[in-house]
């Protein structure tokens, strides 16, 4: 039995996959690639595969991680080439490694996400002013936000520790900006980039027009070196 950890990209053609769609897609791709995927024991056997993160609908990414357990030894080059032959345009495996026994779960090893977001802003927004208000936002000792907990109740949560940096850039299109944001995972918890934008809106006045046409791209997903 071998655990393979792989890194993959998801680009525009498949950005609308739901997490479940993507799981099904990988299961079928493993089968098309003739990967000897291990199945769980029990009443309703499942292929032993997982993703470090559930990707939300619309998200594109240069760096996602997945794991799969196969029953035979397979070298990573073969794994990558066989998978990329069967994956549809929009998904590509860029890296893989064989993990030894006892390596912890991927989701526990998550460290940081670097996002680039393209979003509409209030017409006439001045970029320099926006950058300034973001600086003062980041200077706040704590940033409270309403968050729903697992029981479905709203609780106040300080999201400041989850934010490393935010920077804004111009876009070719008028009244759109690019936001680069590095967010931190703390004990497997994080904040979503669109929630950070919402909280910036809440602190000042509404600048970011958060609607479904927002484009969120994960540039990097850093995992702790020991994983």
């Amino acid at each position, binding site marked *: 039995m071998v655990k393979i950890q792989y890194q993959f990209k998801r680009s*525009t*053609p*498949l950005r*609308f*996959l*739901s997490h*479940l*769609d993507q799981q*099904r*897609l990988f*299961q*079928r*791709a*493993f*089968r*098309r690639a*003739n990967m000897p995927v291990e199945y769980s024991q029990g*009443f*309703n*056997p499942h292929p032993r595969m997982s993703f470090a993160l559930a990707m939300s*609908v*619309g998200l594109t990414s240069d760096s996602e991680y997945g794991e799969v357990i196969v029953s035979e030894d397979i070298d990573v080059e073969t794994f990558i080439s066989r998978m990329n032959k*069967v994956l*549809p*345009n*929009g998904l590509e495996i860029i890296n893989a490694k064989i993990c030894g026994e006892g390596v912890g779960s991927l989701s526990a090893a998550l460290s940081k996400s670097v996002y680039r977001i393209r979003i509409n802003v209030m017409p006439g927004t001045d970029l320099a002013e926006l950058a300034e208000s973001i600086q003062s936002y980041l200077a706040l000792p704590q940033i409270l936000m309403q968050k729903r907990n697992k029981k479905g109740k709203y609780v106040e949560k300080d999201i400041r520790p989850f934010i490393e940096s935010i920077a804004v850039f111009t876009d070719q299109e008028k009244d759109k900006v690019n936001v680069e944001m590095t967010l931190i995972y703390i004990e497997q918890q994080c904040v979503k980039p669109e929630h950070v934008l919402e909280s910036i809106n809440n602190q000042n006045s509404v600048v970011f027009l958060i609607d*479904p*046409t*927002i*484009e969120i791209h994960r540039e990097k997903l850093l995992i702790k070196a020991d994983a």
Partner: protein
Amino acid sequence: MNNYIEKNILPLVIKPITYLGNEVNAVHKIPNAAMIRFAFAFPDTYEVGMSHLGMKILYGLLNEEKDIWCERVFAPWVDMEEQLRQHDLPLYGLESMMPLSEYDFVGFTLQYEMSFSNILNMLELGKITLRSAERKEAEPFVMAGGPCAYNPEPLSDFIDIFVIGEAEEVILKIMAAHREWKKAGGNRQDFLKKAATIEGVYVPAFYAVSYDEKTGVITAFTPIIETAPATIRKQFIEDLDRAYFPDKIIVSYTETVHDRISYEIFRGCGRGCRFCQAGMIYRPTREKNVSTIQSKIKALIASTGYDEVSLSSLSTGDYSDIETLIKNLVCDAEVGKVSISLPSLRIDSLSIEMLEEIQKVRKAGLTLAPEAGTQRMRDVINKGVTEENLIDTVKTAFEKGWGHVKLYFMIGLPGETLADIEGIADLGQKVVDEYYKIDRESRNKSLKVVLSASSFVPKPFTPFQWMGQNTPEEFKNKQRHLKASIKDRKISYSWHDSGVSFLEAVFARGDRRLGLVLEKAHEKGCRFDGWGEYFDLQKWTEAFAEAGIDPEFYALRNRDYDEILPWDFIDTGVTKKFLKAEAEKAEAAVTTPFCPENCSNCGIMEFKKGWKCNG
């Protein structure tokens, strides 16, 4: 357009991935001027349409031709429709995202009458002129085929070309005619005339219908051009084993209704259930060989990665060598890894042991279709199943650990009495009793028996084609009576809206005068009539009134045997004489044997020269 839709429209709808056409095994070609562009249209949602086997066959078949690009289009869900209308964007073919109006052909498959309003809506969204007669030279030819095309008349105002019967061969003949026509450079009318001479093709514009002023029944149905045949003969594939079946089928990203490989093991059915249109129109029965099935399924698993295969047919257990087939599939190294399902099982024809062999993992619900509650009624409809068959079957199932049984029935069958309705409840009770006879230790811990009763819709080309449907009021009374007859809490009961069944009956046996009703209903916004939440009987009632048409004339009236029926010009091979004899036997509750046991001379043997049923 592609980029605009991707960026600005799709993020706003609930199932964006279903509007992109970039699935695994979807066909993309580089178009050129000579290429025939064909949009295969399914008048329901992506999830429903992508479960349809016929589309997969024809999509593969047409795309085998280098100069044809067949793409898909489905009825956009209401949120997508709203976006398209708001942005004034046309409905498009998924693969190339080309507007529907730019295709050479838009071909609809007609699976059920309740999708007819979606056809009009899709044409409108595709910016194609609704009425065939008003379509301009450059517009696509709108085609239709599938089971509901056996009575094409209600759609004849909107469809240029109907294909009657199995399309695999005839569609290629139509494509060949189109190539020639393009080369010769004729007009729209020229092509339609040419198409009308192909056997199995019906071009409604070339026929005239007259009616009796007083009674409203048809007095004559005649071709108005010399080259249009007076009778349209349905087409069928003689050698199904060698017929085209794709090695690759599209794998949807989103979960579809039947999210698995569906492989057709035989076509046709020799049981002769009198209510069943498929059982008559798909005659003769033709099987594929065990080895063909096995090798094709292997190829499909390899090209799709699906983990489930369903062996499809009208009555899977009737496959002549079902035991060998299943044994071979289960023992096959590759096929054995995926799960195999057997839909459409008859109660008597397959042992539960066999089901158990293939469903090693899960004991999901067992679904059986006795169709009627009493033996007399089952004899009337020629459903050759006895109560003993059913009880034996559920007894074995309970012994093997099943706990959930669903039984399908129809109400409103010819000659039905309240005793027959009570029989449904009694049968449910007997199933429950059977469960309690099994030792507590060896039976499933929970028991659930579901009785599902649909309202019977008489269909063309069946022995019940002359029969008036029960009124909505009668259906409601029967539903109430059935509900009251159920005493055990382990039994639950589900039924269908009788308004939908009424409308279905109107369109199933309607004529071309219904075109106006359809148009009016469409203008009022009717679509997705098969989806409870969008069915609006009020709008339909208004549409009938405005068109001056009495829907009861079509649904509720008993027709005389010598009345000219709107679909009489179609020859399915099963003779009217046979259907009439079957109707008379039904009245006397006399059964007709299964074809392999005794040929009842339905007519199909004489239909095609040299054809012989092999049982």
